[in-house]
């Protein structure tokens, strides 16, 4: 097999505003428009999201979760893009956007219910404007485009008043770009010029399959075949990610149509807790990416700016510790679901046959109680 890494980043293509050593650099097209206070807040979000992620991984290892999907290493891609979501925008996640979920108001303990098996997906996606996690790869790309078609019909795109406009951002991974649904979503979005931002976290690995198996060209170049503008951004650089996502969301809101963003990042951990990356990838590769860590580089930058100091970091550690306690305790306290309560979630009005089935099951259970 040809093992060329067709996806190796061409430095000229990669949009970066903060280097791995925490140095600010300029880019010809994209500018960081916010002050350091925003970045201090981002660092806090990234650290807390990382803590949530590591707590969940630990809970799975202890047998408290059926599965966990780690996001370690992808904090900047998620926080930078999540920060570009405005008050009329809607987010369609895959199943790994834990940091975006937290930013949109999903309670981490609530999310754990899905992975512990106590709930289906138990957050109010309409109120939070953060759709349910989807576990069929790429399926949500179509839902996002359809939702964006709805925004167009609701008159929420291309208004002179930018505050009246909305857009949709949909997340998926490098593996999902091979799915038919994602490609169909790109066709529909392009044909109808929908306000959709396709945000791909290219974390280099789809379980054991390297990106070269999904694409022989850099992923963002795929979009041109659909007639969709695309950029590749350093996914571990929260400044650059936010800058390009804001640009793309503004394009969408103003009626200029869809954009494709490839956030070039790395999944530092396993695909899920069922996976063993040592079987398919080299330790040297992981080490090389560890040197590009998104949290470390932002910390270095903000320390250098004097925006934070050691005391601030210590306080954040303490906050993360307390957050970890709440997550662990909250997880263990999640109530076990009753099958009888779930019937009502199948149809608007339960058909007679299901009413009878439920009654049979309840009678069966009651027969043990009487005995």
């Amino acid at each position, binding site marked *: 097999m040809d093992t060329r890494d067709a996806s190796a980043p061409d430095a000229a293509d990669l949009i970066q505003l903060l280097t791995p050593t925490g140095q600010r650099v300029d880019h010809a097209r994209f500018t960081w428009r916010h002050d350091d206070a925003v970045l201090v807040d981002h660092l806090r979000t990234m650290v807390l999201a990382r803590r949530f992620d590591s707590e969940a991984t630990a809970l799975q290892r202890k047998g408290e979760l059926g599965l966990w999907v780690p996001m370690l290493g992808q904090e900047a891609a998620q926080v930078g893009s999540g920060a570009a979501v405005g008050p009329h925008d809607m987010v369609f996640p895959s199943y790994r956007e834990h940091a975006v979920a937290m930013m949109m108001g999903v309670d981490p303990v609530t999310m754990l219910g899905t992975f512990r098996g106590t709930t289906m997906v138990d957050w109010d996606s*309409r109120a939070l404007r953060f759709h349910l996690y*989807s576990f069929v790869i790429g*399926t949500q790309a179509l839902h996002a*485009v359809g939702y964006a*078609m709805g925004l167009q019909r609701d008159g929420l795109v291309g208004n002179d008043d930018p505050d009246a406009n909305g857009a949709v951002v949909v997340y998926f991974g490098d593996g999902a770009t091979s799915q038919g*649904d994602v490609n169909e979503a790109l066709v529909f979005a392009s044909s109808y010029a929908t306000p959709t931002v396709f945000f791909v976290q290219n974390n280099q690995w789809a379980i054991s399959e390297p990106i070269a198996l999904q694409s022989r060209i850099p992923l963002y170049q795929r979009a041109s075949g659909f007639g969709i503008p695309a950029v590749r951004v350093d996914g571990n650089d929260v400044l650059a990610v936010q800058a390009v996502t804001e640009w793309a969301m503004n394009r969408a809101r103003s009626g200029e149509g869809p954009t494709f963003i490839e956030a070039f990042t790395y999944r530092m951990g396993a695909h899920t807790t069922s996976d063993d990356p040592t079987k398919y990838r080299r330790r040297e590769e992981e080490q090389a990416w560890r040197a590009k860590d998104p949290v470390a580089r932002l910390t270095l930058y903000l320390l250098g700016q004097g925006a934070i100091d050691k005391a601030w970091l210590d306080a954040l550690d303490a906050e993360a510790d307390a957050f970890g306690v709440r997550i662990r305790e909250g997880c263990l306290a999640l109530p076990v679901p009753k099958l009888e309560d779930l019937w009502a979630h199948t*149809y*608007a009005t339960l058909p007679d046959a299901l009413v009878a089935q439920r009654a049979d099951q309840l009678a069966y259970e009651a027969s043990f109680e009487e005995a």
Partner: protein
Amino acid sequence: MGEQMTMARALNAGLHRALEADPKVLLAGEDIGKLGGVFRITEHLQRDFGPERVVDSPLAESGIVGTALGLALRGYRPVVEIQFDGFVYPAFDQIVSQVSRMRFRSMGRLSVPMVVRIPYGGGIGAIEHHSESPEAYFAHTPGLVVVTPSTPLDAYWMIQQAIAHDDPVIFLEPKRRYHEKGEVDLSEPPLRLDAARTVLTGDDVTLLTYGPMVKTCVEAALAASAEGRSVEVVDLRSLAPLDDATVLASVERTGRAIVVHEAVRTGGIGAELAARIQERCFYALESPVLRVTGHDLPYPPSKAEHTYLPDLDRILDAVDRSLAH
């Protein structure tokens, strides 16, 4: 009181009325705009309601259903057309993994008021993939409603009831009956969407059928009556949920049941009905529940379809076999 019209015309009129009644209703599908659909069911609707509400879709069935789901999440009531039965399978994942269970996976917070219209069934001399009867796949899926009209009257009302329904509805249109006329009373719906209809009453045996086979069964029942046999015909109309009460009451009375459908036999609607009947009417049965169905083959070349599809003679043969017990 009523008007004579074809089922195709009745569906068109029903869709027109639904689009008029609710600005959130929109149609999407391949060739449904200027062309009016390959069967002309949506003729002139784009002219009357505009391209934002009657939307020509790229040629991608999963895309059509998946984007319709997104529209539903935004508060719309999308009605999508799958051009032919055999082309629904690219959308199968969206229908069974997403559309059907969005209410369940959202813990009851979300609903998907979508209608998936599918012209289905054989008997029109079509090429491969254009004569399928996929209803059992959908009836097997929790969260879906599966219905099929057999007359212009039901087509007119059931399409409107399906659109008004808060759950996703698989709406199967018997394409071989599109151009047959019937009387349509435009004033009020004759039945609930989930109700079966007793088309002919009889005492000796019950034919349970739906969609394109209703007419065939009625013809068989009339032929049987000439031989002195009293045959009841029940048009199920709704395949999910099934109207157990109507079915079971009929079989309780006649003691004999024959299920007739075009779809292949194994795992079909007939199997489900036979199971329910023996569970609930075992002691009323005078003979085994029989099935007259398509054979367990892929749909055959059209010159052989007349031996594949249930027809009057095969149904009468089953009536004889049932009454021989």
